[in-house]
């Protein structure tokens, strides 16, 4: 257990830039853009004599809103909080993708594998520590940064509005920051399970390829998909090309992008059927929607495939050396 902790720490040291700084910088840029947008609005508003303030439109916000308006404002603020994480999540997808692709390849290329292999560490420990970093550590850091940036944005917006005579505290109490946080944090286990086939495939290629793991990882499924489609077009063998692209190629390569589960589910209207009509929250990002995935065979088939690929990655890690 202690060894595993240090293996994780080792991964963090090596990938501090992509695990920690990439989300922080993305969040910083996101905040900066928002502040620039607010300043632009203020300046343009002042130039055109359009006053948001005490006598303006926003004056009504605090005093004359009915319950429906209130919930819309609350939703807007929740969405603002989510949007920070959404941007970071896209970055996370790229980080995890390229991290997995290099995790078991880079040290073979620069021969430092000979150093790691000179230590009493099992190959399964090494590979599993990389799986844990891709599916737990990196998403957890991204979510924490996303929550901090979201809160900051919320406060900035509330502060801006308070200069226009809107009660900041009333606005803040309208939002549901804790529910947003809870939703984001509880999305991590779903992400872990959903991303497993892609993480497994990329680690497998990373451990197996003698060179150019990116090319193998991408070209192999895409080429297979093209062949399947080709047979499909000719009407030979009746291969289910659409199914193949959706469930093998896409799942094998793109599942590390958070939200890809929801997107692939959008094609399947039946997945929305079970959402209780009274469920609150923001559409596809709602937790209910995510946890609904647990009941789909697509998720569990992916988990199985992912575990198989990780086992394969461990085997290749054992026998591939620097040559």
């Amino acid at each position, binding site marked *: 257990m*202690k060894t595993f902790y240090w293996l994780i720490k080792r991964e963090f*040291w090596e990938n501090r830039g992509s695990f920690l700084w990439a989300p922080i910088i993305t969040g910083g840029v996101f905040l900066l853009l928002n502040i620039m947008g607010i300043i632009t609005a203020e300046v343009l508003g002042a130039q055109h004599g359009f006053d948001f303030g005490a006598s303006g439109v926003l004056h009504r916000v605090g005093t004359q809103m009915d319950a429906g308006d209130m919930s819309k404002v609350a939703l807007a603020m929740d969405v603002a909080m989510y949007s920070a994480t959404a941007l970071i999540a896209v970055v996370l997808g790229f980080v995890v993708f390229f991290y997995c692709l290099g995790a078991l390849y880079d040290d073979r290329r620069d021969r430092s594998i000979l150093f790691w292999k000179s230590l*009493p560490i099992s190959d399964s420990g090494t590979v599993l520590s990389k799986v844990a970093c891709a599916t737990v550590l990196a998403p957890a850091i991204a979510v924490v940064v996303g929550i901090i940036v979201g809160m900051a944005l919320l406060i900035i917006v509330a502060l801006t509005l308070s200069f226009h005579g809107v009660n900041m505290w009333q606005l803040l109490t309208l939002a549901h920051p804790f529910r947003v946080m809870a939703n984001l944090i509880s999305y991590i286990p779903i992400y872990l399970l959903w991303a497993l086939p892609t993480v497994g495939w990329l680690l497998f290629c990373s451990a197996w390829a003698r060179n150019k793991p990116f090319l193998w990882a991408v070209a192999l499924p895409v080429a297979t998909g093209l062949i399947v489609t080709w047979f499909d077009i000719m009407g030979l063998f009746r291969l289910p090309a659409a199914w193949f692209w959706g469930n093998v190629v896409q799942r094998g390569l793109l599942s590390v992008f958070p939200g890809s589960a929801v997107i692939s589910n959008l094609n399947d209207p039946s997945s929305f059927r079970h959402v209780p009509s009274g469920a609150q929250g923001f559409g596809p990002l709602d937790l209910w929607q995510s946890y609904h995935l647990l009941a789909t065979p697509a998720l569990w088939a992916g988990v199985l495939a992912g575990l198989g690929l990780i086992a394969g990655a461990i085997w290749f890690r054992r026998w591939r050396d620097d040559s």
Partner: protein
Amino acid sequence: MSAVITASGLSKRYKSTLALDNVSFQIAPGRIVGLIGPNGAGKTTALKAILGLTDFTGELNVLGFDPRKQRDKLMGEVCFIADVAVLPRWIRVSEVVDFVANVHPRFDRTKCEAFLARTKLQAGQRVRQMSKGMIVQLHLALVMAIDAKLLILDEPTLGLDILYRKQFYHSLLEDYFDENKTIIVTTHQVEEVEQILTDLMFIRDGKIVLDADMDAVGERFTEVMVNADRADAVRALKPLDERQVFGKSIFLFDGVERAQLEVLGELRRPSVSDLFVATMKETYA
């Protein structure tokens, strides 16, 4: 005491070449064994087999473990330095010391820090900022702080200047080696290890062509330096090798009585490099 390594019938085939050809040998504890051979002779393959880094056929027992099946346990007892610059370039001195201290049960942190204090390495320094010599100093400090039974060095001083090379073997001998430890070293710089070896193994085309301790080597091989006029008489005794120095001929003999040679000229103890050249002379032909 039982052998540290016992190999019998070790073979390893890469696509078209036989890297190890039915090799058998034993290495006893407390020895420093030089595994010496030309490029592509199978040295690194042999070491990789011992370390469980490659598959092979035949029997191999390293410290009671089968390297194919019990690699993780084996690596608790074995250390190795596979030439210079295999430390990850991104890692800092403090990080690598922390990491090894926490994953290696036989690592002595204070020892390692004492070794590092003798060098110019800084705790915050990254490997990519170091020269080759400094990387080897760091690697050696890590390895010497591990109480391992077997140390394997594969070209550990390749590309280092003479100061680092001398220091490397000096530290190894003074601060590390004792009768409970065994060191296997491969190198091309034969002259530098000659003085510290207790055993010599020559490997050529996947076969062990010489396996003897240094005393036996001294008894078995003799060089005799003779004037040109007596050269033909000496050639009749079928020397292993012949070379000319300052108008005199030096002949190398394997297992010929010293008394028989003494009458012909001046006897010398052959150096390992002369022996190596004589044994391997047709390798690249």
